[in-house]
């Protein structure tokens, strides 16, 4: 978490959550951790935003959740990607790649 870490771009959090969950079912902190790790600390996830986003995605039908007991007898909520969540991820990924490529072209043209 260096000084150059960046707040998530608006709207990308959902995609990152879906992407993370496409690997394996995982709990909230796990998602935050993985996003930070994979982005090598560029993105820092706000816990409040993350947990709200999880509720939203779950209600949208893209995630399922289940409670598991942890070693120190607490409850942990694990999230799984649903089939429609997977479709959503594909759509968002495609959309993102198109936008990113477009932005990249514009930036190059300006030089």
């Amino acid at each position, binding site marked *: 978490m260096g000084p150059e870490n960046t707040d998530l771009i608006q709207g990308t959090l959902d995609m990152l959550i879906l992407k993370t969950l496409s690997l394996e079912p995982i709990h*909230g*902190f796990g998602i935050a951790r993985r996003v930070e790790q994979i982005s090598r600390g560029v993105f820092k996830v706000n*816990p*409040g935003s993350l*947990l709200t986003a999880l509720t939203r995605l*779950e*209600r949208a*039908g893209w995630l399922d959740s289940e409670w598991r007991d942890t070693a120190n007898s607490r*409850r942990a909520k694990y999230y799984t990607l649903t089939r*429609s969540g997977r479709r959503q991820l594909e759509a968002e990924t495609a959309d993102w790649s198109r936008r990113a490529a477009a932005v990249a072209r514009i930036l190059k043209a300006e030089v």
Partner: protein
Amino acid sequence: MSLWRQAVRGLRALLNRPAADRDINDEVEHYLDEAAAALERTGLSPQEARRAARLELGNVAAVREQVRAYGWENVVDTAVADIRYGLRQLIRKPAFTIVAVLTLGLGIGASATIFSVVNPILFEALPYPDAHRLMMVWDGQNGRSDVTFGTYREVVTRSRTFQSMAVVGPFRPTLTGVSEPERLDGQRVSADYFRVLGVTPALGRDFHAADDRPGAPFVAMISDSVWRRHFGADRSIVGRQVLFEDVPVTVIGVMPATFENVLSPSAEIWFPMLYDTTLPVNGREWGHHLHMIGRLREGVSEAQARQELDAIARTRDTAFSRPSWAALPDGFVTTRLQDDLSRPVRPALLALLGAVALLLTIACVNVTNLVLARGVERRTELMVRAALGASRLRLMRQLITEVVLLAIMGGLVGIALASFAVDLVIALSPHELPRAAAIRVDGSVLMFAVALVTMIALAVGIVPALYGSRADLRVDGRSRTDSRGREVARRSLVVVQLAFALVLLAGAGLLLRSLQHLLAMPPGFEPANVLTLQVQTAGRRFRDPNATHQFFAAVLEAVRYVPGVSTAGATSQLPLTGDQDVWGVQFESASPTTVNESREAYRYAVAPGYFEAMGIPLRQGRLLNAQDDGNAPRVAVISESVAKRRLPGVDAIGQRLRIGASPGWFTIVGIVGNVRQASLAIDPPDAVYVTNEQWTQFADGARWLVVRGQSDPVALLPAIRAAIESVDRRQPIVRVATMDERVSASAAARRFALVLFQAFGVVALVLASIGTYGLLSGSVTRRLRELAVRAVLGADRRSLLELVLRGGMSLTAVGIVIGLILAILASRFLETMLFGVSRLDAVTYVSVVVLLALTSAIACWMPAWRASRLDPNAILRAD
């Protein structure tokens, strides 16, 4: 799928908030644990790791709140909290709440009542399939007249735009085969009548064409009510014979209980027409006494039907003869059945809708003002809430929630009021009001009330919410700018109230003056002390005309001997009863080609003594007397209008006339004054009087007895009844009323509108006064210090009184000026209901202005008086 999830999860959270909170709590805690564990793995001690994790996470409570705030269920939660808080606020101020709820209840109740009356008549489709295709067709003669059977036969054969047509006429047979003979209201209908309406019998069969031919076996259809009342709802009634006037008639069908017969709501029995299809020219087949109704073919427009009927009227077909009085020179008048029914009451109903909208607005304005005034009192409370972090939107929502609560309570009170008021209005309604049975507080009225409540909540809530929620923008609670704006708003609202109240009062005033004028119209007879009733002959023996004449002669003789009776007469039709027996009258002197040839007149077949009993004055010649019997030469008496219009510049006495296709000429022997037959408001029509015995085409089986008493004739009724029954106790006596009652009933439609306008006007006046009083009284309270300073500086009581009074009265003056302009504009909508008075009647406007000014002065006086009595020392020391 996801919507479903939204709903279910939200609902689960809403219904079990603790469990939902626990889930969020656990998830956040677990997040913290995992974060700490991760830090621990980097080499921190458990305590340090936990501290670092907390730091990283930020405020745990805030995170929980953030997660908890997601979801629609939170909106519901807040609303519930608002409602709870709002209810507490309303309970804390019971006087305010009660006044506001009652005011709104009055407004909503009045609106819902008027709507429930207007809806089935003007808006709701009639209770028939494709009711918009049902048309009434009138003979265009004299504007609109009943058609003859001959005309119907021609139209039904020649028309292509109508799928089916029928004619109906009134009919009142007496059911005699039962222990207590009962006269039933019924209709004679052509065979297709029920098919035109699109209604089928619940039991048995409908009329066939074969039932409606002269000489066919007698058949009848009965209503559900007759079936239950007389035949114990016995299904085997179909096919059984029943006695009507001692004649056996086979019952072939029973109409469903839900059948609403808009053309004759009281009809309970239906007979076929049985008119002679060879159309003898001197028979009833050519009398203008039938209503014609038709069902348009699908896809045919009203205009197409009109065009076709006009063409039929214009072009003669040799296959159909037309006597001169049914030659259709004026074509047909075709209107939608619903418009036709609502025609007599439409202006009144629309005016009432407008009036009740004004009243509702006044009520809303009053409540808006109350809520605004309360906003001043609540300023501290709202500022505290704003200071504690409530957003402006949140405060607005709170204020609107309270108004919504008021509106809902007002709506409940209104519906309760309406369900009572509807019965009152029905009791008050004129007989012209169609579909009276369909008037009730039903689903559509409830929907209307809900819509009203919503509109009121928005209209009343928005202004106070805007002012009230501004509390958060100000630190200084005494800021003048806001209260100035609020004051202007309240003043304008009071002006609106005063102006609208004036509009309502002016409407009531115009209607009142119209009614006075109407009742002052000379009816052409002397209504005082006259009792009238109809006797209907029923039975086989009355098929002989002489028997009928003898019966009525004997009845009249017996009635004349009743002590207290000064004179008595009889007539075939009586003014102001709705009777309309009109015949073409032809004069011997007029050449057959004159336009006047087929002009019509009311035919009165009377027994001598009728003119004396009614008090119809003789103008020239002589009246009819007992010598004018069946053996004497035929003689007639005409009304002044006939003499003037038909025989101008000629001495009418001695001229000869013919009524319809009467076999002989009647010699005119006298001229009497004009009589208003249909209504007081309609100019007297032409009238021709002959004696019963000389009217040889048929003997009128139902005759009116007109009895003039020496004093109040109602007391004589039992004796008169006994006298009639002494002749024959089986002949029903019906439609008993004094002539005074008939005069008064003929103004019922106007009185109906007047009573409601008066009620609305009075309520509006009271509400406007309350509004004015409330405004001034609030302003005196707020200006106490200023007034006290004035008093100390030498203002005496009188000048303080004047100061406040002037403020209130200048407001009233503005309201009156605006109100006058609006009233004059609005009076256009009353124009058709006015009689003998201009819509710009100065007397009315001056009176209502004085009334409003006086009431307003009283409302202003009380706060002004309080201002003049204040104790300046006590007030200034209190600061």
